[in-house]
C-alpha cells in the first residue's frame, strides 16, 4: 500500500491565506481539502446596528481588489428594501464603475497571478523579465481601469463616491474626454491580450458543472438580472436562499456553499460567459470566435482566456457608456428607510455576490448576510483539485503540487473575501 504526501505551506499568487491537503492512497485520491485559515472578519456582525447608508462604505472594506462589487450589491439590496429604482443614467454610471473594477481585477490576475503558471515562471517578476512588452501593456490596461474607478468612485481603492440612491457626485462630460482616448487604445490592446492568452499552453480538464450567474437581460451582466444556471434555474435574487445555502466545514474559516439539492456550483467568468456570451459586445464576440470559444468553455484552465474576453468587453462597454454620457440632473435619488428586507446579487469579478439586509423603520441594519463568490466556489475548487490530482497523480510531487496550485488559481480566489494561501499536503501513504 502506498500513500503520498506533498506540502505547500502558503499558496502563492492568490489573495489571502489558505492551505490544501491531498491524500492519495493506492492510486486513489481519498481526500482533497482547501483550508482557509485567514482570520474571520465578522463584517456581517459589524454591520448590525449601523445605518443603512453606511453599508456600501463598510462592506467596501471587505476587499481591496473588489470593493466596487461589495458596494454595488449593498446599494442594490438597500434600494430593494426601500422600494427604490434608479433612473437609467445612474444605472449606466454604476455599470461603468463596475467595468473599471472588472478591468483592474482581471488584468491583475491575468498578468500577475495566472500567466506565470502557463509560462513556467515562479512569479510575475520573473515573467516580466522575459515578457516585458506584455507586462507593460497589462500595467497600462490596469491603470485605465483604476482611472475609471477614480473618476466615478472618488479614489481607486475603497471608492468613496458611492451611496444608496446613486452617487455623491457625478462627473461633467468633459472629465471623460481624456479617458476616451485611453479606452480606444485599450480596446485594441485588450484584443491582443485575448489572442496572447489563448496561445498560452493550457492544460485540459473537462468536467460537468452547474454554472450560475446573473442573466436574463439584454446586456452582459454586471449589476442587474435574474440568477440563472446552466441547469435551467431562473430566479430573482430574492429567491437565492431557496436554492443555495452556506455551511461550515472544519479546518476552514470560510463558509462553503451548495445548492439545496446538495451539489456544488460554479460562479465567475466561466459561468457568466457560458450563460451570456451572446450578449458580449461586438469585438468581444469576434474575439470569442477567433479563439474558438463560440460554443462555450468548460475547461477551468481556460478561465484566463475568458477573463481576457471580459476585459475586452469591459473596455468596449466603458467606451460606449462614456460616449453616450449626459450628466444627470441629480447625482442620486432620495432613499427613505423602511422596515423591510432587501436582497440583491451583482457580478463581482470573481462571480455572483449576494447581499441581504434586514433594516428597521429607523434605517438601522438588524441583520446582514453576505455570500461572496469565492465561498460559493469552495466546493467546486476542491472537486477540481480532486480531478486534477487524479488526472496527474503520476507526476512527481513538485509538478503535481504546481498543477494543483494552478487549478486553484483558475478561480482567482479572493480568500480574504471568503473568510468572513495554499499549503498543499499530499499524503500518498508511502510505507
Amino acid at each position, binding site marked *: 500500500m502506498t500513500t503520498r504526501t506533498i506540502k505547500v505551506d502558503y499558496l502563492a499568487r492568490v489573495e489571502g491565506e489558505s492551505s490544501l491537503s491531498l491524500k492519495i492512497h493506492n492510486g486513489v485520491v481519498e481526500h482533497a481539502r482547501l483550508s482557509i485559515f485567514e482570520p474571520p472578519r465578522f463584517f456581517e456582525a459589524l454591520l448590525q446596528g449601523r445605518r443603512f447608508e453606511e453599508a456600501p462604505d463598510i462592506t467596501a472594506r471587505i476587499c481591496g481588489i473588489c470593493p466596487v462589487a461589495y458596494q454595488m450589491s449593498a446599494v442594490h439590496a438597500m434600494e430593494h428594501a426601500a422600494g427604490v429604482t434608479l433612473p437609467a443614467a445612474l444605472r449606466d454610471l454604476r455599470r461603468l464603475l463596475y467595468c473599471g473594477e472588472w478591468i483592474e481585477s482581471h488584468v491583475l490576475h491575468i498578468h500577475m497571478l495566472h500567466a506565470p503558471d502557463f509560462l513556467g515562471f515562479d512569479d510575475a517578476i520573473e515573467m516580466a523579465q522575459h515578457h516585458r512588452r506584455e*507586462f507593460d501593456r497589462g500595467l497600462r490596461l*490596469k491603470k485605465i481601469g483604476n482611472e475609471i474607478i477614480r473618476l466615478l468612485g472618488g479614489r481607486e481603492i475603497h471608492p468613496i463616491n458611492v451611496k444608496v440612491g446613486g452617487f455623491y457626485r457625478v462627473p461633467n462630460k468633459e472629465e471623460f474626454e481624456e479617458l476616451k482616448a485611453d479606452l480606444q487604445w485599450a480596446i485594441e490592446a485588450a484584443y491582443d491580450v485575448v489572442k496572447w492568452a489563448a496561445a498560452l499552453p493550457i492544460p485540459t480538464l473537462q468536467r460537468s458543472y452547474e454554472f450560475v450567474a446573473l442573466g436574463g437581460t439584454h446586456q452582459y451582466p454586471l449589476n442587474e438580472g435574474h440568477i440563472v444556471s446552466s441547469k435551467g434555474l431562473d430566479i430573482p435574487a430574492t429567491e437565492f436562499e431557496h436554492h443555495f445555502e452556506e455551511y461550515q466545514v472544519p479546518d476552514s474559516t470560510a463558509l462553503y456553499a451548495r445548492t439545496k439539492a446538495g451539489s456544488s456550483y460554479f460562479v465567475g467568468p466561466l459561468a457568466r460567459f457560458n450563460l451570456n456570451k451572446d450578449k458580449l459586445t461586438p469585438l468581444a464576440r469576434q474575439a470569442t470566435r477567433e479563439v474558438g470559444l463560440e460554443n462555450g468553455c468548460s475547461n477551468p484552465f481556460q478561465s484566463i482566456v475568458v477573463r481576457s474576453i471580459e476585459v475586452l468587453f469591459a473596455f468596449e462597454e466603458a467606451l460606449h457608456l462614456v460616449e453616450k454620457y449626459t450628466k444627470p440632473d441629480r447625482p442620486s435619488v432620495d432613499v427613505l428607510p423602511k422596515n423591510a428586507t432587501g436582497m440583491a446579487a451583482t457580478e463581482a469579478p470573481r462571480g455572483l455576490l449576494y447581499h441581504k439586509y434586514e433594516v428597521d423603520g429607523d434605517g438601522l441594519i438588524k441583520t446582514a448576510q453576505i455570500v461572496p463568490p469565492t465561498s460559493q466556489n469552495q466546493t467546486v475548487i476542491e472537486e477540481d483539485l480532486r480531478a486534477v490530482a487524479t488526472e496527474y497523480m503520476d507526476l512527481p510531487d513538485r509538478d503535481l503540487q504546481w498543477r494543483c496550485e494552478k487549478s486553484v488559481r483558475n478561480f482567482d480566489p479572493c480568500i480574504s473575501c471568503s473568510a468572513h494561501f495554499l499549503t498543499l499536503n499530499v499524503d500518498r501513504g508511502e510505507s
Partner: protein
Amino acid sequence: MTTPATKGAAENRTCVIALGNPDRGDDGAAQAVIDRLAQHSLAADLISCQGDSMTLLNFWQDYARVIVIDVLAPGSTPGTVRHHTVSDRLFDDLPQAPSSHLASLPEAWRLAKALDRLPECLLLITIEGASFSIGTPLSPSVAQAVPKAADEVTRLVSQFTGKEKVDA
C-alpha cells in the same frame, strides 16, 4: 492633494508617495505625513497610494526622485522613523511579514526593476506601526512619529532640490 504633473514636466522633479490605507489604524500614518506636508509648499508632488502598490510603477517612471513613506508591521519600537535607500538588500533586512497592500512594496520594486521603470533615486521612509485595526486612529507612538517623518521628508527634498519650498 497635488495630482502628478504631466510626464514631461515631472521628469526632473521629486514626488513623495504615501503608501497605506488610512482606514486601518497605523497604516494611515503615511497619509498623515503628507497631509502635514501639504500644509506647506514643498518642492515635490504629494501622492496618495492607498493599497495598490502596482500603481507605484506608474509614478516611479514619471519622476527623477521618489520618496515613499510606508508603515512597517509592529516590531520592538513602534513609532521609530527610519530612512532607507531602496535596494534588494533593504527588503531582506526589513522585518518580513505579509503585506497589507495588494502587492507588496518589495514586489513592486522588483517588478519596476525588471521593467526598467525605477526612478534615478528612490528612498523609503518607514514608520514602525503598532496597530492596524480597521477604523481606529493612529496609535500614540505613531502619531508622535508623524512630524518626525515629515521633517525627514522635508530635509531630503531640500537636499534634492537645493530648496525646501517652492518659490512664491
